[in-house]
């Protein structure tokens, strides 16, 4: 089972190394990890996608909580949430295939962000299965390069994951 964790951390220099190190030394598998500033400049927000059953997830959560700079962890997978990933794909193009690729871009509501003589660079955002489908449909043309940001996620509706309600952080324990 895949879980998506939203993790609020203090924006300190070593925090990424602490989190990444924890995963590797405890043998937890990270599918993806995305970090950036949250609405509060002192607080960074990580979205971590982990693979594992409930007991592994429990350990991941508890071990993360032991890091002094980790403030709050929410398993959004337990709730109604939206997730997105941004991907850029540089695909090989010939005059004969260009139109077909542009059509795919339309269908997937992707965007062309750069045009080269023999390539197109395409940006697409979306949830994982859409991105995978898009990648698969471009593969026959020859993918020259691909970069993915890793998933980011947010709860739907009025619910939010912020520090102000961090008293409720036990909710994931």
């Amino acid at each position, binding site marked *: 089972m895949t879980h998506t964790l939203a993790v609020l*951390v203090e924006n300190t220099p070593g925090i990424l*190394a602490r989190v990444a190190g924890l995963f590797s*030394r405890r043998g937890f598998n990270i599918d993806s990890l995305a970090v950036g500033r949250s609405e509060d400049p002192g607080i960074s927000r990580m979205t971590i996608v982990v693979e594992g059953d409930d007991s592994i997830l429990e350990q991941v959560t*508890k071990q993360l909580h032991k890091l*002094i700079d980790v403030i709050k962890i929410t398993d959004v997978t337990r709730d109604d949430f939206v997730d997105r990933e941004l991907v850029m794909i540089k695909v090989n193009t010939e005059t004969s295939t260009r139109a077909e690729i542009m059509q795919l871009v339309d269908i997937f509501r992707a965007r062309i962000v750069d045009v080269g003589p023999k390539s197109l660079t395409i940006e697409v955002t979306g949830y994982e299965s859409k991105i995978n489908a898009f990648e698969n449909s471009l593969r026959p043309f020859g993918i020259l390069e691909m970069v993915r940001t890793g998933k980011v996620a947010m709860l739907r509706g009025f619910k939010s994951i912020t520090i102000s309600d961090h008293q409720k952080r036990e909710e994931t324990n």
Partner: protein
Amino acid sequence: MNYSGAEILIKSLEAENVDTIFGYPGGQVLPIYDALYDADIRHILCRHEQGAAHAADGYARATGRPGVCLATSGPGATNLVTGIANAHMDSVPLVAITGQVPWSLLGRDSFQEADITGITLPITKHSYLVRDPSELARIVKEAFYIATTGRPGPVLIDIPKDVSSTVNEYIVPEELHLPGYKPVSEADSWQVVEAAKAIAASERPVIYAGGGVIISGAHEELLRFAELLMAPVATTLMGLGGFPGTHPLSLGMLGMHGTKYANFAVCECDLLIAVGARFDDRVTGKLETFAHEAKVIHIDIDPAEIGKNVRVDIPVNGDVKIVLKQLMNVLQPRLGEAWREKIQMWKKEYPIDFCDNRELKPQAVIREIYRQTGGDARITTEVGQHQMWTAQYYTFSKPRSFISSGGLGTMGYGMPAAIGVQAGCPGDTVFDIAGDGSIQMNIQELCTAVNYELPINVAVMDNGFLGMVRQWQELFYNRRYSQTKLFNPDFVKLAEAYGAEGFRVTKRSELAPVLEQAIRSSKPVMIDFMVESEENVMPMVPPGESLSKMLG
């Protein structure tokens, strides 16, 4: 008023009531040593930074107050690493301070630069690389708070030289702001209620007590709790002294070299109450069969320990001292006589004993140390057979009296730890029960003991072998004693060369008188006990086996 970063550091340490630092100077800590020159803090110059870290660790375990060690950058800092890892594994409150190259040189592989915060990331509870002297006072305060609260552990503060030499204002930090750090104390009442129900329903409960009992100062609560339930108590190596070993309900130690009756009791109990313990593989043996008939209640301050190694039926997350009180508030006394009779029978049938042929057996030496100190000494150990015999034959009845490297199993821990213990508890009789292999790993610290007139007693169980490894070779590798036979120095002369007193005991008849003489001496003493060389530690659960399958 303005102070250098180093002076701010010293002021902040004084504010934490630090009275002793164990350390070793060097280039990047020159400003700190300069500030120490006229500070009211005693500095003990160890002869190796590893010794300083272990001494600070021993000081902390004996006194319950945080230990502080100090080293320079690069090799000084890396020499601390084993000591920090050791403290981490056994949850010891340690504040390690290291010098670092100035910020302008950082990241350029400068002379004596080592990324010590990076190196120690997995073996510290938390760490800091100080950017500016204005942060120092707050960081020191946070470091002591984090090291000593919740589940204690080592915290490292890495201070670049420019930070310790730049002048800044000293502002006493106010309230700490650590939104991500909220150690628990009381357990949720539903957990207490569930645990109490399981206890009331059990017929054959066993209390499995670990180092958490000692750390939280819960020994009195544990005693009352056990007597209320009339439940037998098995302790881990780290838990020794957390429950009186002389008490009728005591099962002694459980696990690989535990007593048979402790292990049988765990195998047959219907309820296992783990109190501040972490289900280490040296305790559980084969996990699938460990306490397999029992419901498991796990009381621990660290939620991450609960459910880490074994399935737990009732988690109780809180400080064990408080949780035991919470439980006693809702529990009724009980008797459980049939169960106690059964345990009594095991105790009679399988006592912890050795074949005493009146030769100089290591077990006999330890019993004699116990007899002559009335069980009142503070005992440190190194790692190996002598450590296990100490656990088995010195009956510990007071918390903080057995000080040993449990989780990491660090040879070379015992003597520097004894120095820290003696520095923290000046009036007490302190013994390092050592092996002839281990003692050489930090032998240089004998110089420290002599230098600071710390009258520790080092009892070397000289079996001419890396005995514990030899035992495994004997049992599991067809007696092929690969690299375990030791060539040793003359320990008596060595002791004398360092300025300590040296004794040698070769016969059983010399044991009592020489020991008496050693204890009476006001100097550091080293006694070379020429014990039987191929004695084994028994009983023993072979690695990976069930606790019921004990040898010996």
